[in-house]
């Protein structure tokens, strides 16, 4: 029945299986060893063991990381962890082998994120592009801002595998197109009950910053005014700087006392495990609190974890796993984020004062506001395995993954030009997954062995959200919205100022997969994998995508004790074509209608004189009917070497080409659309990953192990849709043959001191910038094409946003009962645009502006960039002399960081240990982010997102010191 209906799509798979089944006879197989590894097989990516780099967690348990992604930084080659802010709760973005897609729009981050898999269960995200489309300024999360990847307690994690090549999709489906981070949790231990305890506490140290006050800003502005200002511009000299007797702005610059603080960090977790081979469990609870050093930010997480395995009868195993999480986040209270959320710009004429004495009222008002950010998640899974016959097993896994993501916000009127603001966001996401597979293994003789897997997965995702916002409540004491839906009478808010939004999305994925593995003499391993994924996102009928992957490994030489120089040699080859799941349903349904009739400042107006509207997506771009699945072509080569007995080296070379990627291309504006979504972009990532590990010192006394991870990545746009040579893609300019993470900049060569210096001033054609004649005080931009006018054609592709070279150097030194870990991380070859300097210099267009550009945070009073070094252009010039997109602001942003230092002392062996019955007792101290070396002057360059523009230092990564204790009873 099954094959009749659907397996015709998988004819190839059947051929493969038949081939493997017909070869050889079933030989006596030893019963699967009842080892810890054997018991936890169900959690792991068993079919691709060699190609994944894994990170064994116990060594990192002393670090107070709250996010799994952060832990990978510098520890696993191939992973670049991007982090835009050091604020607790802002999850880093781990990029696996570089960018899968150019990142020109906020929503492109979804295509570049790896898939998180916990015990074989791919996690459903709690943020998605749909809710983002509601926002005019989608730079912050509309919900709690607690990333779903924080919903994993590292305390319970045993191992993290990073799947970087085609095996990610082969194992976990097309959502893993940008790689997968596979997490397995700690297994139960057999025997009497064991208790495990890990407690830590410490402090994140308040950063020392250089604060400034009104004098600094006035002294910065005045030279510009003296040199260039017309009377009209003098008339607009910032009023708050006009009177230097005003203590508000010219008093002590001690705002940092209120803004920065030393922040406590603590965490505790307890777990209990035990049981027999037939029934065992692990139960754990945990708490983690990460307080930020700036702006009263915090993240608090609580979790419960339960893992139970039973074997009711021989041949039947039942594994269950439940994890529950709740997290609270205190988000930063920056003006930009608040005003961006409200889409209402308050009066920006007078910025927040640098003088603490005048900030008290502001902080009081902040306290009368309310902001609750919380997220909950439950993941539950049942895995049932039945041994059907010798070598033949069937497994059925059912899982439910649920999360919600909420934000309640109330901004008191007194903070907000006397118009209070309320908003509620409630997002609920759910995934139900059913995964069934058969595995079959047999060995023929001593040389051959086969293993095959055939399975099917069904996933149903439901995403929904409600978002309600209202302005101008009756008073600052009433912090809720209540509207009389029946009549026109307002209970709290005027009905016309309350807006509600909701969305519901259902998505189904159906996959069939088969893997065949063949081992020859334990020397040669081959694996063929084929899967077919169908997604409801392709409502145009192109539902299915086939992803074939092959993997070979050859143990050229096995390690033996005779080898002095070259030990084991293993070669590995992976190749495949894997499909890419789109990150939203805006592509696969063909031309569609939506509500898209708003304008900047009122994007969500959906009616005309109360009549509903439904139109083509003019702003979001046209989508034609024939959109197909994009896919990646992979080729990975790996060499693993054992050297000088004590050393191992592994080198991976990879190339990954994304083809038929979907991108919005600009179309002629005469059709009304801002663009058209089409297949056809091709991008390539090439690179090398090096891991070198060895014992520098070994022996009885001092032991020193070192591990160096490095990766080099180069990306390139091979083809743009429609074969155009270049196009604008959101904030990025893309050119075929060039990297996709470059800036597109004017090249700065100084300043025209006077009108007479401008080429053409003394006759001929005057040099212009987009038709505006250049004058004295304007930048001397290079006219690359020499046509006598500076335009976009004179911009050049420069710099790299994603560091080509990244890595980490980890050292472990052990001496007796003492051990220490030191981890350095580094990035080289990357650049940033110093947006902080550009914004400060562009004061003429920003000072007091009634838009987000005019907003000055409290951190405006912190001097970071050396503004003296920039030429003094006429800031009022019509050529926008201080635009960020020029190489004047391009800076090298390589960095080296001492990311973590841990010192441990094992108390085992002391007399009291024996008496207490403790199996293990260890105390440890950890220091993090001890120092950063960088040529970059505008702050910490490791805190940068995908745009490559760096806006100062609002939420630093603090130096953190903790001590903890780790005990097993």
């Amino acid at each position, binding site marked *: *029945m*099954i094959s009749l*209906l659907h397996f015709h799509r998988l004819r190839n798979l059947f051929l493969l299986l038949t081939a493997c089944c017909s070869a050889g006879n079933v030989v006596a197989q030893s019963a699967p060893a009842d080892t810890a590894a054997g018991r936890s097989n169900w959690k792991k990516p068993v079919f691709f063991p060699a190609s994944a780099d894994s990170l064994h967690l116990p060594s990192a348990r002393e670090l107070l990381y709250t996010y799994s992604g952060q832990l990978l930084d510098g520890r696993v080659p191939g992973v670049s962890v991007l982090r835009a802010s050091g604020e607790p709760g802002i999850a880093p973005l781990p990029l696996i082998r570089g960018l899968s897609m150019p990142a020109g729009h906020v929503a492109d981050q979804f295509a570049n994120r790896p898939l998180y898999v916990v015990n074989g269960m791919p996690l459903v995200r709690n943020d998605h592009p*749909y809710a983002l489309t509601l926002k005019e300024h989608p730079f912050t999360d509309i919900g709690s801002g607690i990333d779903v990847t924080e919903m994993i307690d590292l305390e319970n994690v045993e191992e993290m595998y990073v799947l970087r090549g085609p095996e990610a999709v082969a194992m976990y489906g097309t959502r893993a197109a940008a790689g997968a981070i596979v997490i397995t949790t700690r297994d139960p231990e057999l025997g009497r009950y064991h208790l495990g305890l890990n407690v830590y506490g410490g402090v994140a140290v308040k950063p020392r910053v250089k604060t400034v006050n009104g004098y600094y800003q006035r002294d910065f502005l005045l030279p510009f005014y003296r040199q260039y200002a017309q009377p009209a511009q003098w*008339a607009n000299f910032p*009023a708050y700087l006009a009177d230097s007797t005003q203590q508000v702005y010219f008093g002590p610059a001690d705002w940092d006392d209120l803004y920065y603080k030393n922040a406590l960090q603590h965490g505790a977790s307890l777990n209990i495990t035990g049981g027999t081979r037939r029934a065992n469990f692990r139960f754990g609870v945990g708490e983690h609190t990460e307080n930020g050093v700036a702006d009263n930010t915090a993240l608090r997480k609580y979790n419960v974890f339960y893992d139970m395995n039973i074997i009711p009868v021989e041949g*039947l195993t039942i594994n269950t796993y439940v994890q529950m999480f709740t997290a609270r986040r205190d988000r930063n209270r920056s003006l930009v984020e608040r005003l961006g959320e409200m889409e*209402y710009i308050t009066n920006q004429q007078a910025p927040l004062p640098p003088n603490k004495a005048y900030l008290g009222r502001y902080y009081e008002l902040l306290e009368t506001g309310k902001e609750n950010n919380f997220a909950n998640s439950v993941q539950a899974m049942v895995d049932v395995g039945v041994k*059907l016959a010798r070598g033949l097993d*069937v497994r*059925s896994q059912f899982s439910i993954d649920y999360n919600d993501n909420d934000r309640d916000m109330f901004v008191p009127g007194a903070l907000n030009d006397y*118009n209070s603001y309320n908003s509620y966001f409630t997002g609920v996401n759910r995934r139900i997954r059913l995964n069934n597979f058969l595995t079959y293994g047999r060995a023929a003789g001593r040389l051959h062995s086969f293993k095959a897997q055939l399975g*099917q997965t069904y996933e149903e995702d439901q995403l929904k959200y409600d978002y309600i916002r209202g302005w*101008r409540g009756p008073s600052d004491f009433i912090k809720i919205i209540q509207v009389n839906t029946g009549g*026109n009478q307002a209970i709290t808010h005027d009905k*016309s*100022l309350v*807006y509600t939004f909701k969305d*519901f999305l*259902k998505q*189904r994925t*159906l996959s069939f997969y088969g893997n065949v593995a063949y081992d020859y003499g334990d020397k040669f391993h081959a694996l063929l994998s084929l899967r077919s994924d*169908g997604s*409801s996102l392709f409502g145009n009928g192109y*539902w299915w995508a086939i992803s074939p992957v092959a993997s070979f490994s050859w143990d050229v030489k096995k390690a033996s004790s005779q080898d002095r120089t070259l030990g084991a040699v293993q070669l590995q080859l992976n190749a495949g074509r894997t499909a890419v799941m789109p990150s939203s349903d805006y592509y696969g*349904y*063909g*031309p*569609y*209608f939506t509500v898209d*009739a708003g*304008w*900047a400042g*009122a994007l969500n*107006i959906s009616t*005309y*004189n*109360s*009549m*509903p509207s*439904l*139109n*083509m997506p*003019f702003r979001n771009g046209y989508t034609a009917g024939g959109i197909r699945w994009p896919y990646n072509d992979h080729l990975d080569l790996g060499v693993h070497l054992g050297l000088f007995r004590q050393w191992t080296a592994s080198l991976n070379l990879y190339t990954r080409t994304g083809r038929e990627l979907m991108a919005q291309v*600009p*179309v*002629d*504006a*005469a*059709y*009304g659309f*801002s663009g*058209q979504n089409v297949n056809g972009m091709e991008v390539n990532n090439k690179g090398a990953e090096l891991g070198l590990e060895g014992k520098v010192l070994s022996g009885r006394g001092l032991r020193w192990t070192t591990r160096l991870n490095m990766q080099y990545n180069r990306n390139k746009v091979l083809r743009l849709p429609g074969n155009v040579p270049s196009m*604008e893609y959101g904030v990025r300019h893309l050119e075929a043959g060039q990297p996709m993470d470059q800036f597109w900049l004017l090249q700065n060569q100084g300043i025209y001191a006077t009108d007479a210096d401008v080429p053409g001033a003394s006759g001929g054609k005057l040099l212009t910038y*987009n038709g*505006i004649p250049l004058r004295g005080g304007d930048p001397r931009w290079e006219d690359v094409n020499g046509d006598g006018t500076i*335009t976009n054609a004179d911009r050049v592709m420069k710099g790299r946003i994603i560091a080509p070279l990244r890595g980490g150097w980890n050292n472990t030194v052990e001496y007796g009962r003492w051990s220490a870990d030191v981890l350095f991380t580094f990035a080289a070859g990357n650049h940033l645009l110093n947006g902080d300097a550009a914004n400060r210099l562009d004061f003429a*267009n920003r000072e*007091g502006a009634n838009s987000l550009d005019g907003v000055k945070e409290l951190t405006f009073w912190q001097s970071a960039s050396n503004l003296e070094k920039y030429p003094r252009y006429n800031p009022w010039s019509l*050529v926008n002399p201080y635009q960020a997109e020029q190489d004047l602001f391009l800076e090298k942003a390589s960095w080296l960081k001492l990311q973590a230092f841990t010192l441990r002392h094992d108390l085992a062996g002391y007399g009291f240990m024996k008496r207490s019955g403790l199996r293990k007792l260890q105390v440890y101290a950890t220091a993090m982010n001890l120092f950063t070396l960088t040529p970059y002057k505008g702050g910490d360059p490791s805190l940068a997102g995908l745009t490559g523009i760096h806006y100062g230092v609002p939420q630093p990564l603090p130096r953190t010191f903790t001590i903890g204790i780790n005990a097993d009873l």
Partner: protein
Amino acid sequence: MHMQRSYIFFFLLSGMMLAASCRTKLDVQPSHLVPEQKMWTTKNDARSAVFSAYALLRSALAGNNAWLVFGELRAGDFTSVSRGDLSAVTANQLTASFPALENWSNWRRFYAVIYQANLCLEKLGTVHENDFRYTEEEMKVDLAHVRFLRSLAYFYLVRIWGDVPLVTRAVSGDFVPLERAPQARVLDMAAADAQAAAEALPWKYDQQSPELRSQYWGQPSAFWQGVIAGKGSAYMLLAHIAAWRGDYLSTDKYARLVIDNRSKGGYAMVNTAALTGNTGVFTGQAEDIIFAMPFNKNYQESSASGHIEEWVLAEPFISKAQPDIFISNDSILRIFDEPNDERFKLTDGGAGAGNYFTGFGNPVPLFSKIRLLSVTGANPLRSYQSAIVVFRYEELLLLRAEALLYLGKTGESAQVLNSVRGQRGIGEYKGPLTALANAILQERRRELLGEGWRWFDLARFEKLEQYSRFSPADLGKGAQFWPVSKSQLSAASPIQQNKYWQQ
């Protein structure tokens, strides 16, 4: 063994159930977008599509206050306080490097209206076939609405950019870059559309017109008055298109048609109190409104952006120290150069009176003619609901006066002019008839101040070189029009930059 068998059975059964339904499982209808094949099936689809065309035109005009920038700011009556982009517009430096200028030079949003209108023209018939409730009568009126909107959008395009691409079909997917069409051809097409709309639209939505005997979308006549097109709007559009082409004979014909049928349309002049009050003309539903695009807060259509108030108001109306643009005291006196003007006059003490301005004599007086805040009370939210008035009756009268003047009927022209002047307290025009053109232009300047007419009026009266930095040679090269946006020029398009802005 028994246990194992039952498991096999269970496994196979669940597998079968899944597999059997897999194609239907994958066929999930999206709930937040409407695929093309589901559109155009019911009566409500027609309604949503037609009103979408209205909403899109409103969006094109309101986005970044484009209507004001195109029609008003370039003419120089307004001065920018500190915003560089607005200064660049008032100085007619339209290629200056500001994001807003790039945005204004992009004509895409007008073409969105045209695409939507083309789509409706092609598809409304399908709705009529699919849903019997959508009668032919309703369909014809809806088709006339979208023709009117397409015509109006093209009329804006021609006035703003000159020669523009002419698109008459809703192309699906094959977006071949288009060349500009000559203005004359575009206006021919706009006039034909407006003519067709005028024939099919009713004067009023009161179930009395032969064009529409049923209630339009279940709403009474007052609901629709002014905010959607009627016969009067279409004829007035025809009159304006003709005037733009210098065909004043037609202008007079169409203008007279509307004026003579004013009782059918329900049009009349309003007094100065209604013009400058906050429940009057700019609600979009006053007696003199022939066509306006409303932003009624009761329908949650009020907004912070897209209104003149956003730029011209400040303390004491809203919490904002200074407006973005203002009319200087000198300019005010030059514009209101006749005594007893109810809109603005100097009192004997030298102070200003009249609602057009607040704080006359201050360094930055406020232009307060239009001030429709969404909320009342202290410290109001900066959200506004003033309509964009496209056509109103006083403007029509002034247009008629202009037409009569150019047709040589100066006496009649002065008479029509006086009817408007009388309404504003400045009495009859006493100057020489040779200066009548100036008087009409000046009256348009006063009456329509802040309504987005001035630049187009100066162009029609051929007075641009007097009021801008452009020489006749500049104007010959197309300086009166806006440059084409950089994104358009880079999008593999055959379109060249307008000659003046090329340099």
